[in-house]
Structures are given as C-alpha cells and as structure tokens.
C-alpha cells in the first residue's frame, strides 16, 4: 500500500550531459581561454605556468587515485599523507644507497603498498575505526622518517624530462605535457588506467559494489575482504609513487615532513572530482594551475600582501567546491567494516 510518487521527468541525454559536465566544461574553457590570451602576451611565462601546473598536480592526482581506490571499496584512507611521506623517504634512501633511480622508485612503491597493507589489516581485518587507522599511519610515517633521516645525505640526481619527439614542440601545451620526467607520464597513464579499471572491468564493478552494498556482493560470491585488501594495497602503492615523485623527480632530496599536507589536499581533490579519476585529475590540474598562478603573481609587482596571494589556490578550491560542483555522492558503505554474520 503505497502511493505512487511521481518522479521528475527524466532528462534528455544532452541535458543530462550538460548537468553532469557543464561546470567542468565551463571551467576548462575559461582556463584554456586565459592561457591562450596569456600566451599571446607572454609565451615564456605561460609555458612556465603550465609546466608548473602539471608538476604541482602530479602528487595530488596520485594521492587522489589512492584515496578513491580505497573509498570506492569503502575503506576511508586519511593516511595518504603518511603513505606518501614514507614512499618519498624510502625512495630517497634507496637512491642514496644504490644510485639506481628505477630501484628507488620500486622501493617507494613497495613502501607505500606496505603501508596500504597495514591500513587494510587495521580496517578490514581488525575492523578498527578507519580514521584512527589512517592517523596511525600518518604519525608512524612522520615518526619513522624523522627518526631515520640524517641530514647531509646526497644523491647523484633526479629523474630528468624525456621530450616526446615533435610533440614536445607543439606551442603552449608541448613543453608542459610532452616534455616530462617518467613519473609524470606514468601519472597520465595511471589516471586513464584507474578510470578504465573502475568503470569498465569486472574488478571495478566488484569494487564499486563492495563500496556500496558489501552484503549484496557477498551473496553473489564476491570476496569482500579480498576486494578491499587489494584496492587498499594498490592505493598505497600509488601513494608511494607520489612520494617517489617528490624525492626522485621534483626535488631530488628529502626533508622532514616534506609532503606538507599534499595527502590531505589529495583527499579534497578526490572529493572535488566526485570519486572519479578523471574528475580528480581535472580538480588537481585546477589546483595546480591556481598554485602556479599564485607563484607568478608573487613575482609580479602587485601591492597585495603575499599571504593573501598564497591563499588563492585554497580559496579557489573552496569556492568551486561549494559553489559549482554540487553534492558528491559518497559510496554508501564508506568507512563501515564488513561483518560476515
């Protein structure tokens, strides 16, 4: 005995597309417009801003990929910061010892994955509160890296940009997109790969099901625990790669707490991107762009206190997050440990 609730008339496909992507398209057009205009005015600075955008956004996208893999399978990961930091540190140390950048990157990824395993064990097997689990990882990473770090360690260098032939010579975007070091390229590929896995494969379907309604997945023979473990570990590995980016590609050395909140910004980026890899990428690029602009503005002779200019990327993020993006739908089972009986 129910009254039939009249649902609002379904939107036509074009309306739906506009509703879903309208804001993104608008922002993208605005950014591209500004960029072209600036390029005409001053090509060098524009190319620098774009390159900086990519640099700034890379660890954030990677962090966000980690976060969304975890949360799509219903494990909240606020330990991205710690996973990144440990990845950065281990990568750096291995580089110091071996001088081999490839081995160093692999070590960083493994360190991140290990941290992912720890988080998975705490939240899936022990059913601990996941916020506490993540905090444990953050504190652990901060403590371990702080304790073992010795000042004065140096390395032979960092990963250098590899220009992709003629692509790198395209005006405006060439230098920014096609003349990057390996981890940045890997990030482009990872965004596409995670998007594909999440939305077009069996594993992705199961991951999303486990994040929304684990019992339903369980009744169909899906191993909820396994799905969560694998996603959280892979997520950790990606966070480790983000750490490797910092020490092996961007800076070339390690300093205490060098992640400097990027793991948390990555969480914001993930939400901003509505738990989708492409969305997170867009969000990270926007944040990186605002950050790059901010740096340029500080060089320019403008009579505004630099603290205010420094706030710009964050203010922009908040305004866009609250004003345009609208509600993000969180996976229904997010943060809830699964009990079998």
């Amino acid at each position, binding site marked *: 005995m129910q009254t039939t609730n009249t649902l609002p008339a379904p939107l036509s496909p074009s309306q739906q597309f506009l509703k879903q992507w309208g804001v993104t398209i608008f922002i993208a057009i605005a950014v591209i417009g500004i960029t072209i205009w600036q390029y005409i005015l001053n090509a060098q600075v524009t190319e620098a801003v774009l390159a900086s955008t990519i640099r700034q956004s890379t660890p954030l996208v990677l962090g966000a990929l980690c976060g969304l893999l975890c949360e799509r399978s219903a494990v909240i990961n606020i330990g991205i910061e710690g996973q990144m930091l440990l990845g950065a540190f281990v990568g750096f140390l291995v580089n110091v010892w071996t001088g081999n950048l490839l081995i160093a990157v692999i070590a960083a990824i493994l360190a991140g994955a290990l941290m992912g395993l720890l988080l998975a064990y705490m939240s899936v097997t022990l059913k601990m509160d996941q916020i506490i689990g993540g905090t444990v990882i953050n504190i652990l990473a901060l403590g371990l890296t702080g304790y073992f770090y010795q000042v004065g360690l140096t390395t032979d260098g960092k990963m250098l940009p590899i220009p992709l032939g003629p692509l790198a010579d395209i005006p405006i975007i060439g230098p920014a997109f096609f003349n990057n070091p390996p981890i940045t390229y890997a990030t482009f590929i990872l965004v596409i790969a995670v998007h594909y896995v999440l939305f*077009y494969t069996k594993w992705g379907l199961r991951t999303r099901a486990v994040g929304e309604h684990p019992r339903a997945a369980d009744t169909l023979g899906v191993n909820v625990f396994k799905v969560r473990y694998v996603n959280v570990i892979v997520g950790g590995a990606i966070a480790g790669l983000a750490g490797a980016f910092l020490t092996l590609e961007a800076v070339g050395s390690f300093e205490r707490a060098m992640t400097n909140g990027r793991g948390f910004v990555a969480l914001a980026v993930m939400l901003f991107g509505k738990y989708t890899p492409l969305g997170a990428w867009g969000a990270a690029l926007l944040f990186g762009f605002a950050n790059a602009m901010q740096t340029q503005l500080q060089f320019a002779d403008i009579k505004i206190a630099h603290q205010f200019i420094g706030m710009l990327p964050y203010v922009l993020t908040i305004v866009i997050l609250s004003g345009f993006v609208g509600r993000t739908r969180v996976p229904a089972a997010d943060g809830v440990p699964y009990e079998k009986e």
Partner: protein
Amino acid sequence: MTEENLALEIRNVTKRFPGVLANDNVSFSLRKGEIHALLGENGAGKSTLMNVVYGLYAQDEGEFFIDNKLVEINGPSDAINYGIGMVHQHFMLVPVFSVTENMILGSEVTKGTSLDLNRARKEILKISEAYGLEVDPDAIVEDLPVGVQQRVEILKALYRKANILVLDEPTAVLTPQEAEDLFVVMRQLTEQGVSIIFITHKLKEILNVADRVTVMRRGKVVGHTSPKETDQQGLATMMVGRDVLLEVEKSPAKPEDVVLEVEHLKITDERDVEVVKDISFEVRAGEILGIAGIQGNGQTELVEAMTGLRDATSGKVYLSGETIPFENPRYLVEHGVGHVPEDRHKHGLVLPYDLADNMVLNTYYQKPYAGQMLVRDEQAVLKNALGLIERFDVRAPGPDVAASTLSGGNQQKVIVGREFSRPLKVLIANQPTRGLDVGSIEYIHKEIVKMRDEGIGVVVISAELDEILSLSDRIAIMFRGEIVTIVEAKGTTREQLGLWMAGATPEAVV
C-alpha cells in the same frame, strides 16, 4: 526417502549463535516444481535455515542433498553453482547500479578485460522474456518501485540458472496488488521447473499459493501440512503452538472525557507540500480511534506533529484541554503521551544499545534511573528491564543484548514495554504490528485493548484494513491529507473502508 523426486533435501541441520539455538536438528525437503512454504513466527529460524543453505552461515551440524546427491556448501558461490538462488527480505541490490550491473555482479560477462554490458543486456532481455518478467536493463535500481526491484532479484537468481528459488518473506514489502502479481510469477516459475521455498508468516498467502507447508517454531520443525488439509486457524495454531485469536476480543468501549483534541491542524512538509490539510478530531479516554489510509496520505506527518517530532503550520493539539507545544517530545513524555513509532529501527530503538538502555530511552533522566549526582542507577535500569522482559514476554537471551539482535516482533515488544509501562493518558501507535507474525500481533492487540480498558485514549494508525476494523471503536479515514469521514467501527465493512481510502466521498459509499 530417496525414491521421491527431490530438488533439495536438508538433513538434521543445527546452527547455534552465541546464546541462541537458531536451528535445532532441522530437516526439510523440497520436491521438484513445488512451492513449499516455510512458515513460522519471527525468530523461529526460517531465515537462518535458508542462509545456511545459501552458504551465508556455516552450519554446526547437518547435510544437504541436491538431486539426491550429498553436497557441501561453503559459501554463496557454491550455492549458486548448485542452482540455488535466494531473494533476501532486504534486497541485495546495489541501489546506484543499473539493472544489468546488478544482474552480472559476481558472474560477469567479459570481452577481453572489459565488461561486455551489451551481451549481458541481451541475455537479460532473453531471460526476462522467457519467464515473462518484464524489466528495463538500463534502469537504475533505486529509481524502480519495490515490486520491480523484487523482479530484478528473481531475475538475478534465474540469470545464474537457479532451479531452486528461496523467497524470504517476499510480500513483506509489497502492496496487495504487487503480492498478487508475485504469486502469478511464482506459479509460472514452477511450471517451468523451478522449485520454490516460500518463507512467510502470512497465513492467507500460504493457503493461496503453496503446495506444501513446513512449520517451524523456536528453531525446530514442528509439523508438515498442506493447504488442502488445513485453514488459517489451523496454521496459526501450529505456528504459535497454541490456539490463537485471529480476531481481537474486546468489550464495547466506555468512552469518557476528551483527552486528545486536534484542531484545524495544517502541516507542510520539507518539499513545501501541504500534506495535512486542516484536520480536526478528538479522542476520548477509554476508546480506540483508528486512523485508516493508504500510506503516504499524511498520517506520518500527523503523528509526528502529535508526538512532538514536527512543527505544524497552523492549528492546535490539546492534551486534556491544554495546548501542547510542537517539537517538544519531552513535554509529551512527561505529560503522559506514549508513542509507538512507525519505523521501529529509525525512531523506536537505538539498535546498538542493549535492551535495558532502550527501555529507559525516554525516562533515563528521571528517578529511579538517574542516581546520585551524575551517576545513573544501573541496578534500577536493570530491574526495570528484567521486569518488562518478563511482563511483555520479550524473547531475548538477556537485558544486556543489543536491540539489533532481536527479531522484529521482539523489538516491537521492547518498545511496547517501554511505552505501555509509563503512566499514560494518550497512546499513539503507528503501524504497531507491521511486519509481525500472528503471535506477536495477537499479543500487541491485546495489550492495546488493555490500555483502552484502563481508561487511556488510544490512536492506532494502520494501513491494514483488518487491523483497523478489529481494533478500532471509531475509524477516521485519511485521504490526501484530509479526513474523509469518521465512522463507528461497528457496522463498517472492509469494502466501505477500501472505497473511502481510495478517495470516495462519504456520501457515495453506503
């Protein structure tokens, strides 16, 4: 035993939970192509048994035979492989997924590394046509009505080539019309060779659709019968273990002074729709006013306003002549208004709390539960709980178990115990027996009548015609936020009520 053509045989299954023997040496057999009803009260162990068969719980003892062959079922994937499909009481559908995605989850069709949604869609359409279960493969599940979601669940089992289908209280969430449609589908399925286990506690449905009946009580099988050999009364007796009154026994009401008066009440909901339009009525001490109506005609909001959970746009509610404030539930608790809420999980209980705490949810700050200083008196809380458990026959291992572990009927008894044991002037019971079995219904009806006879003004809101007719002294019928009419229960027929509830004017119904 094996001469028979059995689809499934369960032998001597025992399943223990901490403190409870859920299945005690249960045996059960399902013939090919039959609808076998599994009848029992809430908490009798029907669902547990089926969850064991489906591999969700591991049995402590016992064996399963499928097509007369011994099989081991260690998880749902085993059960699926043996052709067992289960439609759970609470649907196992991912609300944000499309029908197709829900269907293929766990048995995905792929092309290379990608999901092959196109092929899946075609297969689904083929099956849905073959069984006459129409469904749109691209619809998002949460947008579908409950009846269609259930169809998706059935198709999900058929998609996995199930020939044994377990339906766990499938009609609990359906409208009567949807239930009728389901029965038609069930018969069609058996004609195509599917064997169905139909779990229910609704007697009429069994007589309607089942071929055989197995009755369970307190974890044990207590008997077998068939609709040909028995009737509602017989089934009820078997299920409860004693003679049950399917009708409420009550003497004529002796109404006294007006205790509750609602005057020109108007309520607007969150979407700015006026859901209660100028309602007035009064309730006297010692009478039961039934409010009948199809769900969603403003009853929920009306009750929320009367119980302090919602503000009204205009109008007044008087309790013994005094105006009550809106949105102040504690005032009502302290002035003798009892409330059995519509949704016992959401508004009736704090599910993770134990029974003792749940039983003092609205009086914990009063003597004797609040002890010296800021400390509460655990002993008093416990004593209260033990008393209520005994008096209201709550079947639970003890007062310290979480409310979430109890069956629906026993949860409702916890609420009834908490509300009915306070000194009351007015009792408002919204859907007091929804989802309960006959034993619990009988019990709660008896308690409600007892409250009336003690001189309390009772309001019962229900969508069940039988409940309204048998409990009420007077009946108010609500339709689209208005009261169509208020009539004496005596002499009113089901048909009249049904017409009023569907919006017929009082004059049109004679």
